[in-house]
């Protein structure tokens, strides 16, 4: 394949949209991801996507808009996670695991009750190559919302993530903030999943943050670094997948994991 042929891919609109969409989600995901990972909610992407399936199935069952019910379920699940997170404050990740089980169980129940045609998963999972203009606008909106939220509330988010008690004692309305974070998380993640797929969103939330927390000593730098990791993986990954004909999401995620392993190896880790 000649270089021109290789660069040819950049002239395709679907590819341009994939790149643009990827860059947007690649900015937003680690930004919100940091505040999820450090609350031990790193699996929230996977969980919300599974819970949404229950909503979609119920939508089919009762004849309501599957997609809206999917988002409603994601928001309810996020609220339940937040509630359980305080019950299991020292094992916050349990809240995710419980919701995961509950969501899949509900989905299986609704699906088994359903009579009609429900291509449940089809309603949920996007692919980065199938973005349309509306998707791009949504991606841009979600990214802008997250970016603004994090920039404006950076200090508050840092404090509530690092030390929730201290945040309360310094007067932060912690419950309200948690609610806000929760709902924003549910909305942005479920929108992003619909656009570029659960795999990519879950990975972009978690892996860049996991890599950056090894490499950076302070929070601000770790946040910036996670965005750099994420964008590098998206841009290189989309391009490589485009030229080399691999599955784009899979390529991006494996690239991220490769970057993570390289980071861990280069730091050698602290001996225990």
């Amino acid at each position, binding site marked *: 394949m000649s270089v021109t042929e290789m660069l040819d891919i950049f002239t395709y609109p679907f590819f341009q949209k994939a790149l643009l969409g990827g860059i947007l989600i690649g900015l937003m995901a680690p930004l919100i991801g940091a505040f999820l990972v450090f609350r031990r909610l790193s699996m929230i992407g996977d969980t919300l996507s599974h819970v949404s399936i229950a909503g979609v199935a119920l939508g089919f069952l009762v004849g309501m808009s599957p997609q809206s019910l999917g988002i409603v379920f994601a928001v309810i699940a996020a609220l339940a996670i937040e509630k359980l997170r305080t019950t299991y404050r020292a094992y916050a990740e349990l809240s995710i695991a419980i919701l995961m089980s509950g969501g899949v169980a509900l989905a299986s129940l609704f699906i088994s009750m359903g009579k009609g045609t429900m291509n449940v998963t089809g309603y949920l999972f996007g692919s980065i190559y199938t973005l349309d203009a509306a998707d791009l606008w949504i991606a841009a909106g979600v990214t802008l919302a997250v970016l603004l939220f994090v920039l404006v*509330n950076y*200090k508050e988010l*840092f404090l509530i993530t*690092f030390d929730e*008690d201290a945040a309360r*004692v310094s007067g932060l309305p912690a419950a309200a903030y948690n609610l806000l974070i929760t709902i924003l998380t549910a909305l942005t993640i479920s929108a992003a999943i619909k656009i570029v797929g659960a795999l990519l969103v879950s990975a972009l939330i978690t892996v860049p943050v996991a890599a950056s927390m090894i490499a950076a000593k302070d929070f601000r730098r770790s946040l910036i670094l996670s965005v750099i990791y994420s964008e590098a993986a998206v841009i290189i990954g989309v391009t490589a997948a485009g030229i080399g004909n691999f599955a784009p999401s899979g390529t991006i995620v494996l690239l991220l994991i490769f970057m993570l392993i390289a980071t861990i190896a280069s730091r050698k880790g602290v001996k225990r």
Partner: protein
Amino acid sequence: MQVCHEPVIELDHVTFAYDGEPVLQDLNITIQQRDFAGLIGTNGAGKTTMLRLIVGLLKPSAGEVRLFGQPLRSFDQWDRIGYVPQKHALNPQFPASVREIVLSGLYTRKRWLKRLKPDDHSKAEEAMQALGIEQLADKRVGELSGGQQQRVFLARAIINQPELLILDEPFTGVDEATQQSFFQILRHMHQHHNMTFLMVSHDLQMMREYLGDEPLRINPRLSLYVRHSHGQDCRGTDIMHSLKSLRADREEEQTASHERGDQRRFHDSGEVQAVIHAGEGEGEM
């Protein structure tokens, strides 16, 4: 009532139980402006519980807590308060530098959504110097030794120079020299700046030396040592200034005397102002 005698902390018939197990019962305590109150008690007596009730992290099952005269429910001047808990929720792998954590002491209600100013950074520098951790500023907190971490949290508590400082065993793991110098800073703040202190400690000796030997029994397991200060206020408002005056004091001492233990005895004619009506059924609501 004198201006400096306004109540800062009031526990009004406060009762608290964990899961039905009563810990504190019908507590009535008033700590006034410019009190330095030392709370002493056996393990499990309820000191930490009381402090968490005061800062609103626990809700009393009966009674009311008031801060600066305002019931906790409606209290919102959290920037007037500093609190160092007994245990930190510090995850050793959380990527936060010492500087970031010390600065977070400034993130109080009034400053929400506002950006940090250069002034704030110099405050952080001073607070870190006061605790001798300025060299560690850019290190990750999780990579510090236990005592170094405690110093970080102490620096965070004083960066804002709050009017009320609540300290739960603040010297845990802190080395002798730093304990001394930090306690001297606290004493200077108490004597010359309009600050009130509530401190839990098991170091009876240190407490007695500054607070006197006549504790007020709150209940059979808890007692409160209180010293009130009428010292002259000085103009300096920065921590650096406390530190400098401390250093001056120290040099003086060093030239004046070499006897160990002496530098601790700073009793002045503080009168005990805490009003305690433990166990009484009534009292001013």
